[in-house]
């Protein structure tokens, strides 16, 4: 965890007003503590990602919610998929075999199968 002031020191390219706007837009969700913000590691990583999207990929703040919204959906799906995979991996081999057989092949997958 890192306090707002330390974060601004650490990420030199990060502008205070810019970050404040991101938090107000709920693109970044720091923890509020004693009138200031505490950023968890996940928040810092997200800020670094947004910085790159904004400045290096030149995506403006109009389009940013679209990009972030899609990213969040992808990661949510991946979290759910991971839960599912963990649950499947914990099953006895017989059960895994049943599921493997029940999985329909993806269209066009045959071509890439060896």
């Amino acid at each position: 965890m890192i306090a707002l002031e330390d974060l601004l020191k650490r990420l030199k390219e990060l502008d205070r007003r810019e970050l404040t706007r991101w938090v107000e837009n709920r693109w970044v969700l720091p923890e509020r503590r004693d009138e200031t913000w505490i950023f968890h590691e996940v928040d810092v990583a997200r800020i670094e990602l947004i910085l790159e999207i904004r400045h290096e990929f030149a995506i403006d703040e109009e389009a940013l919610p679209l990009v972030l919204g899609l990213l969040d959906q992808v990661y949510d799906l991946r979290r759910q998929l991971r839960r599912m995979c963990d649950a499947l991996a914990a099953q006895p081999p017989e059960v895994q075999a049943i599921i493997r057989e029940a999985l329909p092949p993806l269209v066009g997958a045959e071509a890439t199968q060896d």
Partner: protein
Amino acid sequence: MATTQTPYQVLGVKPDASADEIRKVYRKLAKEFHPDLNPGKPEAEARFKSISAAYDLLSDAEKRARYDRGEIDESGAERPQRNYYRGYAEGAEGRRYQPEGEMNLSDLEDLFAAFGSAGRGRRGQGSEGFRARGADRHFTLTVDFLTAAIGGKQRLSLAPEEWLDVTIPPGIEDGQVLRLRGKGGPGFGGGAAGDALIEVHVEAHPLFRRDGDNILLELPISLAEAVLGARVSVPTVTGPVTMSIPKGSDTGRQLRLRGKGIQKKKNPGDEIVTLKVFIGDSSDPELAEFLEKWGPRHPFDPRQGMPSA
């Protein structure tokens, strides 16, 4: 996390301060906060350390330049490698950014619903549904010696706010695993729940030891009790009992208290009491005087039967 100051802030100089300026400020602060000059102030040492560390970094032109470029942090350590968002996003922390009102799939039914499946597994429709037994869950439970000897119930924490009163059968042994059917993970598609497998650890006892179903106890007795016999109170796993010590009992003599061992319903074990004679106050002049007369008239060598070394 404590607020970390930049080395410039520690010394209270501007980021464009000259080397001379930094050296001057450092000397002033170092004198003020040197631990040996502030014996009663523990905080001075911490302050001195940070001042020294800051000066160490800023007085070295190369290090200072690297710090200014952001290549090293205020402790002089290389900046940690960047942690990418994806490393967090898929883990539990990532849930913070879960889209609002989107999938909150807390159980399988939600998952089926989200993708338009019928959730047929749970309804178990003919051959299409499949069922699976729930996963076993593993726990460890520490049981005190007496509970293991006489049996009882012990509370096991399965999860926060989830408790199970485990019946401990008398005579359970260290390392034994209890299987509680149906207390594991829930089954799938109508399958049976898994089991809870509880590995039991039995704590040691200050007095009792265990030998199979018997309890071993070493009982100190006095010289008078050993020679003349006595009735004494003896601790057992079910509480103290009175036991007769026969006249002329030696150290090492074993007396058996039937049924006072491991409290198995069929054939409970015994408690085996091994006597140990203690002289007590060995400087007792009366006893010494008596033995000086008595000894020579009753020659006895307890080491007679010992094989020579």
